[in-house]
C-alpha cells in the first residue's frame, strides 16, 4: 500500500492502464491545458490535476485536448469505443451532462441492447460532481440520480483513494459504458492505496466502513464522511451503526443493504441529490419491499431539499445534509417504537 490523494489515484490509474493497454485513450477540455499558447502543452494539465503529464508520456493521438464541445466529446467517446478503443472522457463538471446527454443516454447506453447484444461500448465518462465550493446551481450538482435510472450505464461513485484505484481500473477494463463520478471535495483527500497493478473492485460490491448492528446508514461520496462522524459519535454512547459505502449505484449491492437491515431493522440513506426519485427513495423502497418483516422503523432518506444548489455559503451549507441532520435522522429511526 502507498499513501496518495484521491486525484493522484485517478491519474496514476490512468497512467497504469494507458501503459498496459494501447487502446486506452483520454479526451476532454483542457486535459492537456495550454494547447495553442505561449506556455505550451501541459502548462496546466487539467483543471482537477488528473491528467498532468499524460500528453508528454502518451502523445497527441491518445491524449486528446478538445474544444468546448461536450456533445461531441461524449459522442466521440461513444464512437471511439464502438470502433474498438477504450476512451476515458472527462466532463469538466458533471453538470455539463446537460449539454451532452443524448450521446450518453440515447447512444452509448443503448448501443448494445439496440444492436441485439452484438457490440460493446467500453467508454468511461469521468466527471467532477458535488457541492461544497459555492459554485452555485450549474457547477455543484450530484447527477447520479439522473444517470442511475438509465439502463445500459454503470454508475460508480468512489469515496476513498483506494476505491478510486480499484473502481477506475475496473471501469477502464469493463466492457460496458461506465459513468465515473468524482466528488470535487474529495480530490485532495488522501489514504492508503493498493499498488497491485491488477487491483480491481468489482462493481456492485459495497464497502462496510463502520460495523455496529443497531442502525444501517447507507451513503457514498462526500457525505459518507459525515455518516462516519455520526457513527463514531453514537458509538461513544454505545449505539452501533453499520455504515455502508455503496461505491456503485448501478449495479447496486442490494444484498449488503438487506443483510444489514435484517440485523438492525433501521435504515437511513444519506444522499447528495434532491429527494424525488432519488438514490435514497430507491433504496428505502427496496428495503420496504424486500425486508419489510425486519423493519423496526420506517426507512428514512436524508437529502437536500427539492431546490437547485444555492450560491451563498449560508445557503449551500443549509442545502447539504449536515452531520446534525444525519444524526437527527439516525436518532429518529432509533427512537421509533
Amino acid at each position: 500500500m502507498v499513501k496518495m490523494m484521491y486525484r493522484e489515484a485517478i491519474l496514476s490509474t490512468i497512467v497504469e492502464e494507458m501503459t498496459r493497454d494501447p487502446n486506452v485513450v483520454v479526451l476532454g477540455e483542457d486535459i492537456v491545458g495550454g494547447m495553442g499558447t505561449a506556455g505550451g502543452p501541459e502548462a496546466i494539465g487539467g483543471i482537477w490535476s488528473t491528467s498532468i503529464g499524460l500528453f508528454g508520456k502518451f502523445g497527441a493521438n491518445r491524449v486528446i485536448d478538445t474544444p468546448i464541445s461536450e456533445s461531441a466529446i461524449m459522442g466521440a467517446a461513444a464512437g471511439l469505443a464502438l470502433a474498438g478503443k477504450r476512451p476515458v472522457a472527462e466532463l469538466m463538471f458533471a453538470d455539463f451532462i446537460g449539454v451532452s446527454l443524448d450521446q450518453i443516454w440515447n447512444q452509448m447506453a443503448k448501443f448494445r441492447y439496440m444492436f441485439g447484444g452484438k457490440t460493446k461500448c467500453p467508454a468511461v465518462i469521468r466527471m467532477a460532481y458535488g457541492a461544497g465550493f459555492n459554485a452555485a446551481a450549474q457547477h455543484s450538482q450530484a447527477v447520479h440520480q439522473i444517470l442511475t435510472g438509465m439502463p445500459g450505464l454503470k454508475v460508480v461513485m468512489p469515496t476513498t483513494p483506494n476505491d478510486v484505484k480499484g473502481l477506475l481500473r475496473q471501469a477502464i477494463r469493463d466492457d460496458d459504458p461506465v459513468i465515473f463520478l468524482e466528488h470535487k471535495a474529495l480530490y485532495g483527500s488522501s489514504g492508503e492505496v493498493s499498488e497491485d497493478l491488477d487491483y480491481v473492485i468489482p462493481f456492485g460490491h459495497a464497502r462496510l466502513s463502520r460495523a455496529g448492528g443497531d442502525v444501517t446508514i447507507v451513503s457514498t461520496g462526500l457525505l459518507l464522511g459525515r455518516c462516519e462522524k455520526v457513527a463514531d459519535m453514537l458509538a461513544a454512547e454505545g449505539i452501533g451503526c453499520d455504515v455502508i459505502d455503496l461505491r456503485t449505484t448501478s449495479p447496486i449491492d442490494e444484498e449488503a443493504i438487506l443483510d444489514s437491515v435484517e440485523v438492525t431493522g433501521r435504515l437511513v440513506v444519506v444522499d447528495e441529490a434532491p429527494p424525488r426519485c432519488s438514490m435514497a427513495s430507491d433504496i428505502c423502497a427496496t428495503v420496504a419491499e424486500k425486508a419489510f418483516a425486519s423493519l423496526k422503523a420506517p426507512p428514512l432518506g436524508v437529502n437536500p431539499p427539492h431546490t437547485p444548489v444555492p450560491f451563498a455559503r449560508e445557503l449551500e451549507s443549509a442545502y447539504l445534509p449536515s452531520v446534525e441532520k444525519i444524526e437527527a435522522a439516525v436518532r429518529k429511526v432509533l427512537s421509533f417504537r
Partner: protein
Amino acid sequence: MQLSREALLRAYRQMKVIREFEERLHIDIQTGGIAGFTHLYCGQEAVAVGVCENLTSDDKIVSTHRGHGHCLAKGCDVNGMMAEIWGSREGLCKGKGGSMHIADVDKGMMGANGIVGAGAPIAVGAALSAKIDGLGHVAIAFSGDGACNQGTTFEAMNFAVVTNAPAIFIFENNHYSEHTGFEYAVGTNNDIASRAEAFGMKIWRGDGTDFFSVDETMREVLEYVRAGHGPAAVEFDTERFFGHFEGDPQRYRGPGELDRIRETRDCLKRFRMSVTGAGLLTDADLDALDAEVLQQIEDAVIKAKAADRPTAADVLTDVYISY
C-alpha cells in the same frame, strides 16, 4: 460620428466602473470573504460598454460566466451586484446565484450563465420575441472564443438566419478558453467571424480594446439588424487582464504578456489618450470621474459587507411561482 461630451463622459465612466469593480474583487477575493468561482471581465470593458451604450432598455442581452461587465454596462445596480457576489440576501439575486448567475431581466439583462454556449439560443428566443413585437428591438448574445465551438452556438446561428431573427452574436475573442489558446481550439484559421458568415449572416470585425472601434461597429450593425435584415455577427479582438478565474496561475501566458497587454491594449488608457489628444475631454475631467467611481465601488463594498446574510429558510424560496 462625433459623440457628445456627455456621451463620452458616460462611456468612460461605465468602463471605469467595470474596471474598478473587477480590480476591487480581485483584491477582496484574496481575503477569503467571497465564495465560489469568479471570472473577471477586466480588459474587455470597451466591448460591453461599446455594445450596451448603443442599446435601449428594450433590447436584451444574454451573457456568459464572465458576466460582470455585461451586467454593469446594461445597467445592473452596482450595489446589488456587489452584494450578490458577496452572497448577501440583499444581492440582485438574493445570494442564490452569485457571480455566474447575475441577472436583471427588467433591465434587459437576461443572465450571466455558467454553461458555456447556453446563451446564444436564449438570445435567439429573445430576438424572435422582438421580431413578433415588431418594434425594432434586438437581442445580443455575448460569447467567447471558446463558446464559439459549442454546438449550441452553431445551432443558434443557423436558427437565427433561417428565421431572420434580429439577433446579434458578439464574439469576444480574448484568445483563451480557460487555459487553451484559440489558435488550437478554433479551426477556421484563427477567425471566428468567417465561421458566422458561413452560416449566412452579415459579419463585422472590430478592435475590442478600443471603445471607438466598438461603438462605430455597433452603430452599423444595429442599424442593419433593426431594419429587419436579419441576424449579424461581430468578432471583437480583445484581452483578458486576469486569469480565467480568480486563482488561476496563468502558466499558459508568455513572458511579459500581461504587462504588454496592460500597457498597449488597455481600453481606458486608449480612450483617455484619444479624447485628450483630440481636445474633447481633459485629464481633469477624467480624473474627477476616476475618483467618483472609486468612491462608488468602495461604498458598494461597505454596503455588501454590512448587508443581511441569507438564512436556511431562504434555500426553499423562489423555486417555483406556485407549487
